[in-house]
C-alpha cells in the first residue's frame, strides 16, 4: 500500500515475523493483561493502574511507572535490572503519564518460555497489555530482535531462536513507534559494523510495520461484539 500500511494478508511480509498469538484479559484482578506468544517465546503481562502510591514514590505532574519483570533466568544479576529499566523507559515514552498525576502504574511481566528474542517479546506483550488496559498512550511500540551472524555475507536473522542467538556475534533489539516508525529503544549486545546495524534497522522497520498491522487486527477482532 502507498502510505506504508501493511495488508494483513500479504504473503511476503508474513515471513518477517514469527507466529504471533495473543490473548487479552487472561488475569481477572488486573486492569489490563495479555499473554503473548512470539514463535516459541511466551510472556505474560498484568497491569494495575492508575492506582494510589506512597508519598515517597508520588510525582506531582505525572504517573510513576513501576516495572517488575521476571526473566526466568537461573542466575539473577544486574543485567535483569538494566533490562527492567529499558522496558520502563519504553513504557514511559508510550504512556501519556501527565494524564494521571500522583498515581502509579504497576506492570508485572513474567516469562513463560524463553526461546530467544526475549526482550522484544516482553515489550510486545507490554504493548498488548496496555492496549487491553486502555490507558492514554501517544503511540504503540513494537519491538523486533535481529541477530547479526558472524559471517558478513550471511543475512540478518529476524527474531532468532535461542540456538541462533548463540551463533550470532551480535543481537540487536529495536523498538519502533506506530506513527512515524522512529526508533524508540535500541539495545545491543556484542559488536557489529555500522553497515550491519543499518541493515538491521531497515529490516526491523519492515517487521515492525507488519507487527503493528497484526496488533490492530487482533484488537479489532477481539472487540467485535462490544460495539
Amino acid at each position, binding site marked *: 500500500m502507498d502510505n506504508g500500511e501493511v495488508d494483513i494478508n500479504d504473503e511476503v511480509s508474513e515471513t518477517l515475523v514469527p507466529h504471533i498469538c495473543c490473548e487479552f484479559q487472561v488475569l481477572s484482578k488486573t486492569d489490563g493483561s495479555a499473554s503473548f506468544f512470539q514463535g516459541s517465546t511466551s510472556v505474560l503481562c498484568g497491569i494495575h493502574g492508575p492506582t494510589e502510591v506512597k508519598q515517597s514514590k508520588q510525582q506531582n505532574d505525572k504517573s510513576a511507572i513501576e516495572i517488575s519483570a521476571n526473566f526466568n533466568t537461573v542466575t539473577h544479576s544486574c543485567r535483569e535490572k538494566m533490562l527492567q529499566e529499558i522496558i520502563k523507559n519504553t513504557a514511559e515514552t508510550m504512556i*501519556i503519564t501527565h*494524564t*494521571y498525576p500522583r498515581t502509579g502504574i504497576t506492570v508485572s511481566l513474567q516469562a513463560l518460555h524463553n526461546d530467544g528474542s526475549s526482550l522484544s517479546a516482553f515489550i510486545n506483550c507490554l504493548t498488548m497489555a496496555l*492496549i487491553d*488496559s*486502555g490507558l*492514554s498512550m*501517544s503511540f504503540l511500540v513494537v519491538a523486533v530482535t535481529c541477530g547479526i551472524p558472524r559471517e558478513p555475507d550471511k543475512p540478518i536473522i529476524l527474531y532468532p531462536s535461542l540456538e541462533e542467538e548463540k551463533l550470532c556475534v551480535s543481537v540487536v533489539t529495536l523498538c519502533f513507534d506506530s506513527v512515524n516508525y522512529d526508533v524508540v529503544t535500541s539495545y545491543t549486545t556484542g559488536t557489529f559494523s555500522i553497515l550491519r546495524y543499518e541493515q538491521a534497522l531497515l529490516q526491523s522497520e519492515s517487521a515492525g510495520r507488519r507487527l503493528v498491522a497484526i496488533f490492530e487486527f487482533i484488537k479489532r477482532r477481539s472487540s467485535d461484539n*462490544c*460495539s
Partner: protein
Amino acid sequence: MDINDYVNEIVLSGDLFDNADVKFVGCGLSKIDGKIQCSKIGFLRQREKIFFIDSLQSKYIACQGDVIIGIVQGRMPDLFRVDIGSSDIATLSVLSFEGATKRNYPELKVGDLVFGKLVTAHKHLEPELVCIDSIGKANGLGPLPTNQPAFMMRTSCAFCRKVLSETCPLLSGLKELYTFEICVGMNGRIFVAAPSTGVLLLIVNSIQVAENMNNHQINTMIRKLKSSNIKNL
C-alpha cells in the same frame, strides 16, 4: 486517513487522521499539526460535529457529573471516605443527603453502598461526592436500600454506558419480564435488588453474560427468557 470512514470502528493510540477542517474534537483525540491523533483505544463516535473516543478502559477515571456507586471505606468527623474505583478515595460530606442536619444524617457503616454524583473530579484534586442535586432533593441518590435481596456486580465502564444507552435492549427487555430495582454506576458497578433471591440471580446472570453480547444476541436471550416462562422463583 479520513476520520469519517472510521466512525463506530475501533481506533488505536497513535492513529492519525488528516481532516484539518474539524474544529472541535472530544476526549481521547487531540489536534497536532493540523492532524487529529488518537490517544485512547476505543470506538470512534460522532455526535453532530464533535468526534470522540468511547474508551474501552476498565479502570474508572473520575469525571465531573458522573453518577456512581461508592463503597464506604471510613468515617471522619464531617465526612465519609468512599471508594469509587478510581485511584483516589472520594469524600462525601455528612450534610450532602436530603434533609440532613448536623444532628440528623444517615449513619453509614464501612461496606455500605452509596449512589452519588461527583461534583469535583479533577486529576489534581481529590474527588468529591454528593447525594443531593442543586435544589437539595435526593432524586434517587443516597444510601442503597438493604431491605430486599440485593447484589452489586463489577463490570467494565464501557458496558455500563452501553446498558444505559437507548439502543441497548437489555434493560427494556428485562423490565417487561421481571420486577427489580437497578442502579447503574458509571464506574463499572451495577447494583440490583429484587423481591426474591431467584429473580435476583437470574437478573444478575443475564446482565453479566450480556457484557460480551451484541444487541442481536441480547434480543435472543430476552426472547428465550420470555418463552421459558420461569415462574415461582
